[in-house]
């Protein structure tokens, strides 16, 4: 059996090397302040912060969240302090850890994405950008950027021009063919794709006959969506050669390993953080234990190792 200390866990995202594949998902870890007392950031592969826009945003009115079976809906409405305040007030705190910082970027126009990317690239302590393309495209009547391959190509290319940081394009699952979108991102120069963002959903209070979310619809996350996320990672893995970061309902090390097996090089832990602030650490430890008992010396050997021919006798 391999010794857990000898196991290679490094993951490359463009020019950035993460020491291991475990990071929180954007929007479930704030700007990294609150969880510093729970999690030793020095051990994480990276920290991914809440989505940032050019100007501060107030977000949606409450109620913003509701529990559903095996998950939750959220419609935070991209509340954030804006990219400038982030750099000034939040980044210095994160810079003290031996851990990559990935900034999640949000825009309502291609120009806003570009601008935010540019500003973040000039800031010391940001190591990669994650472009959230599940946002309503104001110019195109609120249809999400991430549902059209050409728009994705356009945004990705423009953001790449604006930065020399590795660019991760975060894909929306609310599409017919997510692999097609991923290929678009790759063609336009994305260093990696991350998926999935939330699935749009709804929940109704039958007494008042109103939505349980003030915004009417919200994004579904949590273990309920894990099967969909896994399938999408699998579909994308068959079509792209850049690294994939798997996201969606990861609650346990076993869940994370499933994502690695279908082709994710790294994973993000989202909603699980809201239930257990130690989730990222627990999952990292569990992945290492799995590698150990499975005699896998380098995590790369696990990535994409799904056997598609299934012997009947298990």
């Amino acid at each position, binding site marked *: 059996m391999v010794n857990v200390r000898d196991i290679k866990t490094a993951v490359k995202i463009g020019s950035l090397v993460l020491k291991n594949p475990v990071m929180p998902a954007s929007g479930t870890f704030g700007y990294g302040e609150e969880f510093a007392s729970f999690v030793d950031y020095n051990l994480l592969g990276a920290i991914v912060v809440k989505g940032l826009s050019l100007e501060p945003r107030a977000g949606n009115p409450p*109620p913003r969240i509701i529990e559903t079976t095996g998950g939750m809906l959220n419609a935070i409405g991209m509340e954030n302090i804006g990219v400038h305040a982030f750099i000034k007030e939040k980044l210095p705190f994160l810079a003290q850890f031996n851990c990559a910082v990935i900034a999640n970027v949000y825009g309502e126009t291609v120009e806003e994405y570009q601008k935010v990317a540019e500003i973040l690239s000039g800031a010391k302590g940001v190591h990669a950008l994650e472009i959230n393309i599940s946002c309503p495209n104001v110019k195109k009547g609120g249809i999400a950027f991430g549902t059209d391959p050409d728009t994705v190509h356009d945004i990705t290319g423009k953001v790449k021009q604006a930065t020399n940081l590795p660019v991760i394009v975060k894909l929306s699952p609310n599409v017919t063919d997510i692999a097609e979108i991923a290929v678009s991102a790759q063609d336009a120069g994305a260093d990696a794709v991350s998926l999935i963002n939330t699935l749009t959903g709804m929940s109704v209070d039958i007494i008042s006959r109103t939505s349980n979310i003030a915004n009417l619809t919200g994004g579904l996350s949590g273990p309920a969506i894990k099967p969909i996320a896994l399938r999408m990672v699998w579909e994308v893995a068959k079509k792209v050669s850049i690294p994939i970061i798997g996201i969606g309902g990861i609650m346990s090390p076993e869940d994370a390993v499933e994502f690695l097996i279908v082709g994710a090089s790294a994973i993000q832990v989202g909603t699980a953080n809201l239930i257990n602030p130690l989730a990222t650490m627990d999952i990292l430890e569990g992945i290492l234990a799995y590698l150990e008992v499975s005699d896998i010396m380098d995590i790369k050997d696990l990535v994409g190792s799904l056997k598609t021919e299934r012997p009947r006798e298990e």
Partner: protein
Amino acid sequence: MMTVCKAVAAGNVASNRELIDGHFLMNVKLPLSLERPLPGQFLMVRIRGRREPFLGRPLSVYEFQRHVKNVTCEFLYRVVGKGTQFLSQLRLGDAVDVLGPLGRPFEIYPPNRKIVLIAGGMGIVPMTYLAGHYRSSGAGRNMKIICYAGAQNADALVGIERMQTCSDTRISTDDGSRGYSGLVTDLFARDLRTYDPRETAIFACGPRPMMKQLAVMLKDKSFPCQVSVEERMACGVGVCLGCVTAVKDDWGKRQYKRVCKEGPVFNIQDLIWD
């Protein structure tokens, strides 16, 4: 002042009984590492190992005691939906995970004031813990505490026993089945002019409409009044931005604050009620 818990504490149910229809008193045994919650703070409670209910549920502390080998925390809660329903089914020994203490506690004013507590429904829980804190802390021992406690009817008046031992308690019920007939805010309104804003501090917790009415009543008065508000929560620790409520900032501009972090305690005049 703010204290941050270092991890989820593993608890076990010591008792969980129905006091009156749909209202449960649950006692949970927890490790010594759990800090004493300050009045106004809450804990996120989850049934260990289950995904249903999925999220933790915020509960105020009704009573907290340190023992030699552990601490015990009492919760008083009403069954209103699936989460509290499942909590109500817990039995002796069942495992719960507790995160906390969380949130901004009540600011404890210097002891030269009369303390007025106004509790609607389950708002009695943090008010009782606050009253207990005043009584047990040396400073407050000789202070006058008046508590207004309201409920829909006499049968729904739960948890006021402990309050009665440490304060002058005045009761209202919506249907008049016990005490004053009407809303607890109306009961308090009748006495309002007997209180001097410079010598009184008001604390309140209850349903949103009650708090709103109180805000209207106190609008042009200079009473210091802190209220604890509720909002659906996911994380309880400030990372998800799910629990916001609208408040006025220092320049009177509308903005959202996290109930779990900047709250649950707010100054009543900062809250926006639309």
